[in-house]
């Protein structure tokens, strides 16, 4: 949830993830703050952390980063850079999680350095979750509409492109050979998603009338769409894996955050009764 209030954009993950643990909320908010650095190569953090799960960003900083991202996100070089950066985090983190899992399974405690390395990778990978909402959707739809005719067709086209090559993480199950039981039950075989995506991309390309500029836009959009969808799936998978390890190491991380009351915090009464504020109620 992003709320604009005065000169701030308040990003509130507590609303988005009401059952998340404090640690998970912290991963999201630190990932958000790292987005300019990890994805855009900037050397500053985005906003100020109010508490785990709640970040206050000045409207100026917020829009500046969105503008920078919008200006780059449909260029092939930047898409390629994002893809490489993401792969460079997912691969090592997957290995780190496996190694940590094996260490824990053997009844040993992992080396602090090993943990620190995995933690750094997780935090940087979490910066990519921001892709889900920084996409300049309206600008993309406007351009797509010029190609496919209507806003509805444009939205349809865009949605059809935001599909990962791999099956959804929601279809994950405990199955052998890297393919999930749920995916099999859902009838997904091998590179089914990739084939579907190729068909969809082709059908939209066909509507470009051969215009080179439109074709380049659609090609980049197809790559971007796949990347953001892939990010969501891959990150969720590895996020779940990491949370399993982290909660094994520190079970207290599983305690829910949202709704927890900080006994030291005295909330402001929304209908204050001091200062005769509702004095008129006593009038005849």
């Amino acid at each position: 949830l992003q709320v604009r209030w005065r000169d701030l954009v308040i990003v509130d993950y507590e609303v988005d993830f009401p059952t998340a643990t404090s640690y998970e909320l912290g991963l999201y908010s630190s990932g958000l703050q790292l987005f300019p650095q990890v994805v855009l190569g900037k050397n500053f953090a985005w906003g100020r952390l109010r508490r785990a799960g709640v970040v206050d960003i000045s409207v100026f900083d917020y829009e500046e980063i969105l503008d920078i991202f919008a200006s780059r996100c449909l260029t092939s070089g930047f898409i390629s850079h994002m893809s490489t950066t993401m792969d460079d985090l997912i691969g090592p983190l997957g290995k780190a999680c496996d190694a940590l899992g094996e260490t824990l399974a053997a009844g040993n405690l992992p080396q602090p350095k090993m943990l620190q390395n995995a933690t750094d990778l997780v935090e940087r990978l979490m910066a990519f979750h921001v892709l889900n909402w920084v996409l300049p959707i309206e600008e993309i739809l406007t351009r797509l509409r010029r190609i496919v005719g209507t806003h509805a067709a444009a939205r349809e086209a865009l949605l059809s492109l935001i599909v990962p090559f791999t099956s959804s993480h929601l279809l994950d199950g405990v199955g052998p050979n890297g393919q999930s039981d749920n995916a099999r039950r859902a009838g997904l075989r091998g590179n089914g998603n990739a084939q579907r995506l190729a068909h969809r991309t082709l059908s939209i390309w066909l509507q470009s009338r051969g215009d080179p500029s439109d074709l380049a836009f659609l090609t980049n959009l197809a790559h971007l769409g796949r990347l953001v969808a892939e990010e969501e799936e891959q990150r969720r998978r590895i996020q779940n894996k990491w949370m399993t390890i982290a909660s094994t190491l520190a079970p207290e991380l599983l305690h829910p955050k949202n709704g927890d009351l900080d006994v030291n915090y005295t909330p402001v009464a929304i209908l204050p009764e001091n200062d005769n504020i509702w004095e008129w109620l006593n009038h005849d």
Partner: protein
Amino acid sequence: MTELNTFGDASHLGGKAKGLQTALQFGLAVPPTLAVKLPEFAEGQSEAIEDWLKDAAHSVSAWAASKQIRHLVIRSSGNFEDSDGTSFAGLFPSRFTPATKLAVQTALREMLHGLSSESLEVYSKAKGVSRKHGMTFLAQPTIPPLRAGVAFVVARGNDVDLTVQCTWGLALNLVKGLVTGDTYDSRRAGHSALTIGAKSLAVYPLTCADNVMPGNQVAVRITQSDTSIRAKLVFIDEVQALAYVRIPSAESEALSLSSEILTSLRKQLTPVVETLEVNLDVEWVQAIDGLIYMVQMRPVTAQLAPPNNSHVGSKVRADVFTGEPGAPGKFTGPIKHWRVNGLSPSMADEAVLVCGGAKPEMLPEILESGAVISSDAGILSHVAILARELEKPCVLGASALPSWIKDGAMVAVDGAAGKIVKVTKTYSATSLDARLDRTLQGVRIELWPDRLLSHDREEEPGRVMVVLLTHEWLDVLQESGSLQMELERRIVLIFHQYTVREEGVELLLRNLGFITGSWGRWSVAVMGISIELAAELLDSLGLRYDA
């Protein structure tokens, strides 16, 4: 400027003022109300309007200061609204504001601007009423609420039917349909008279804006006791000084209505209905001191739909969706989703409009629709009231619709039952694929998949355009006369069960037996259209296809 009282004459101050004075005369609690009459302004009198705004804002804020009122709600009260048959429900939204002069001036300006809205124009024309004369603005203190809601009181023999909706905080979210709230309907038997709905978001007047920010925990009261609950402040509307608070699930799912409130509302409102012989539509607020205030009272503008005892939201069959009855009547037609900026697909009038919470800008499409499906919840929501007034079937509470309720899909709406049924019709000429065995060699055809009407496209004489549609559209087009119109515009309609959107261009072409030419341009050279099929379609309309 006139403060409403028991003995004055409010008949010249519009429907709402009249309703509130009636409430006062029957001894009901009404917050202090200042009536500010809007003078008649001629075209181009912008300076005079600005002067009036300044004076009116000064008077209202001075009046508020004299009563130590810090937060106000301003309502419209027109001679033309809130009378029998014309509620203008939702078209004059109440405007909350801090009681400072500048803020009041801004609020009044907005409300004045709203008087010239297109939606209001459309509604006025549809109801055949003039809205040009006799507008009054009513300023009231915003009541610090425990709970609030709406109530319908309808005479039945020697008794009354009472329907009440209730939520925590102000009723703003309830009338906008953003929360379902709890409902009591005396027409239902036993325990089913009372249903608990979600009340997860509550709205409160904000008088301590400098001490809070969104994301903070705040303390709110939901009972008369001094005990507060902790809740999360998720949004602040600084212009109206309103706080949107997320209520914890335990309290959100707890019953906000009490037997004391129901008894009190029945006891207070029944004498009004019986004495005046008029059914009532009331907005009420219970203040933190426990007193129930009437903040709006008007005649019922249209009858409620009969109660539905089935479980709301249940799916009896895969092709039936059961929502909440909003307005009685039956209608069959194609689905049309309402979208901002008029970007919904072009379709014939008399569609089944699917919309979210009612907004004034939806009105033109509501008027044109044959039925309405709304995510608004509650039979007393604005969209339901409008639908009943306009005699359009309406199904409410449709916030999570099944995937088959999509643009163009044919559905039958039963407003009284709250049901939406998928209509599946098959055109008599089945197995169209088998007929695609001859070609129209050399005819250049534009392929327009998934379009209905083409009048927004530039026509070029001599071109034949193909519009690919699902079977269900044939009946719709024939009944509406659109098919004839399309054919006169040299468009050949091919009805087929596949569309580009669903299956992709290649699949479509393969199934239709088309042989594609160059894809380098929008115009597609298509060979393989069945001459028999075209002839059959045209013959059925008394036309002849000349190849």
